């Protein structure tokens, strides 16, 4: 009798209790460390708080402050410049490597793949210091190599980490080194999803290698390329370890990207309310922008199919 009442009251819930039991541990932690922080951060966006004295409500003034915050706009500008410096070479290299590693005749594939991929699994706290040595202007191996490989250019030592105009390039080189292999692996998976008969048919029709790339590979790889692009966009915006260890955002604020700036206003200045407001605003903007881009991309794909 009681069992029947319980069943009636909870409908399918009791019957499927194992489902809820199995997801419960994850959801418990998720509620504390995922959901609650999201909501709390939203609340913080509307207050002024240093973490010690009581917070007080300031309404929309944090949002207003953002518009006049030169440091924020500098950081966002730096983010764009760093992205423009590294994304094109990284994507081109990743695409070429993936294309070549996908060739059936290539030997030592696993070796090449490991060599390109391994940078992205290594600790940045270590690698950034190695790059500091390599980038050293007077005693660094990079300037030494540049001067000896291209003696006719008469290069003077490049102040990679000491000058405001070169620090972004140094970060870009580090990022290309670190993330090319990752993108290559994603593109390789995309390439392996393209049926081989497409190329065989094109070959029979007399299409050249370049034509095959333009009319088969690139269009079919478009979703993968879009995914890599999205990862790069988010990666550049929120990049932290690379910059924190190698340049700490300097010299001046020349290599401070958005992630670095957010860390500084949160944990150096303790402007917790304002930092939450900035983090929320930029993230929402990015989510909206990528959703719109994604939709436009889908529409273009659908039209292409028709």
């Amino acid at each position, binding site marked *: 009798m009681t069992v029947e009442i319980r069943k009636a009251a909870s409908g399918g819930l009791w019957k*499927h209790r194992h489902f809820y039991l*199995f997801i419960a541990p994850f959801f418990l932690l998720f509620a504390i460390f995922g959901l609650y922080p999201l909501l709390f951060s939203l609340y913080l966006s509307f207050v002024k708080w240093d973490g010690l004295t009581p917070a007080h409500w300031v309404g929309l003034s944090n949002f207003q402050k953002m518009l006049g915050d030169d440091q924020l706009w500098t950081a966002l500008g730096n983010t764009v410049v760093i992205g423009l410096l590294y994304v094109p070479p990284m994507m081109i290299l990743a695409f070429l490597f993936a294309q070549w590693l996908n060739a059936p005749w290539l030997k030592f594939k696993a070796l*090449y793949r490991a060599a390109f991929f391994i940078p992205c699994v290594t600790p940045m706290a270590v*690698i950034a210091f*190695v790059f500091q*040595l390599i980038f050293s202007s007077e005693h660094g191996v990079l300037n030494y190599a540049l001067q000896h490989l291209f003696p006719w250019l008469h290069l003077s030592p490049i102040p990679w980490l000491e000058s405001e105009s070169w620090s972004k390039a140094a970060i870009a080189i580090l990022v290309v080194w670190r993330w090319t292999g990752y993108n290559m692996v994603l593109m390789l998976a995309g390439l392996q999803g393209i049926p081989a008969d497409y190329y065989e048919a094109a070959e029979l029709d007399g299409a050249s290698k370049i034509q095959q790339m333009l009319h088969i590979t690139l269009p079919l790889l478009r979703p993968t390329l879009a995914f890599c692009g999205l990862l790069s966009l988010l990666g550049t*915006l929120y990049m932290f370890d690379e910059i924190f260890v190698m340049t700490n955002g300097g010299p001046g604020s020349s290599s401070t990207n958005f992630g670095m700036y957010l860390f500084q206003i949160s944990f150096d200045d303790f402007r917790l309310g304002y930092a939450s407001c900035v983090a929320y605003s930029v993230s929402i903007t990015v989510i909206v922008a990528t959703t719109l881009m994604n939709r436009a991309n889908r529409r273009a794909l659908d039209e292409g199919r028709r």
Partner: protein
Amino acid sequence: MNPTRKWRRTVERGAIYAILTIFALVFLFPFYWLLISAFKTQGQMFAMPPQWIPHPATLQNFSDLFHKTNLPRAFVNSVIVSGANVFFSVFLCSLAGYAFAKYPLAPGRDRLYNFVLGTMLIPSAVTLIPSYMILVRLHWIDSYAALIVPGLVGAFGIFWMRQYMIANVPDDLINAARIDGCSEFGIYWRIVVPVARPALAALGIMQLIGSWNNLMWAFIVLRTKDMYTLPLVIYLLNGENTQPYGMLMAGGLLTTLPLVLAFLFFQKQFIAGITSGAVKQ
């Protein structure tokens, strides 16, 4: 095939091998530099022209490192934190992923799943401050738990486990076990876990790398030297004006080595893991 075409093909392939090999060496060069710099004195490190092989090689950096920092302790801390993070995240995500994959009739299943997945879009930068505040409230600052627990709630693990189990764990196997009187948790533990082992390994290695390398969070939540993890010890060797590059390189080598070995060992699973997200797109 006529001889000119064959010859052209040989040249083309040779060029591709050459380019790939040059780039592979360039990509591996920083590791070589880390390795040999660890055995150089500060003077040798900045010598011009560069010393491609340390001559004479020194072990001074390693002995300095072991005298001035508590590296064995940091190593143990890193192993505990990463080990616990890997174990718990694989357990929680596979259990929840299994539930999402194989209990299609449970009310609210899809809504819950989509909700968790939706939070993947929001970067951890947004939740940094509140997560820190929660750890303060719980008195977890400067503890292992502060490094282990917040990292467990990533939605990617659930997504990846669910995908794998839908594709690779047959319903018949589960139903047969149920008819034989196996308990629901028994089905997960004795049937699903062994079948999904490759997926568990992939998630495990991804968590291991993220957690072993984690610098920012360790920097924020750790206070006392005895709690420091390897990346934090290395990072904090870094002085205001002078950098002890010898110790940095020696410590860096010891921090990087276990991870590189783990990667080489689990390379296949790891790559399967990161590509799963892209293929789904």
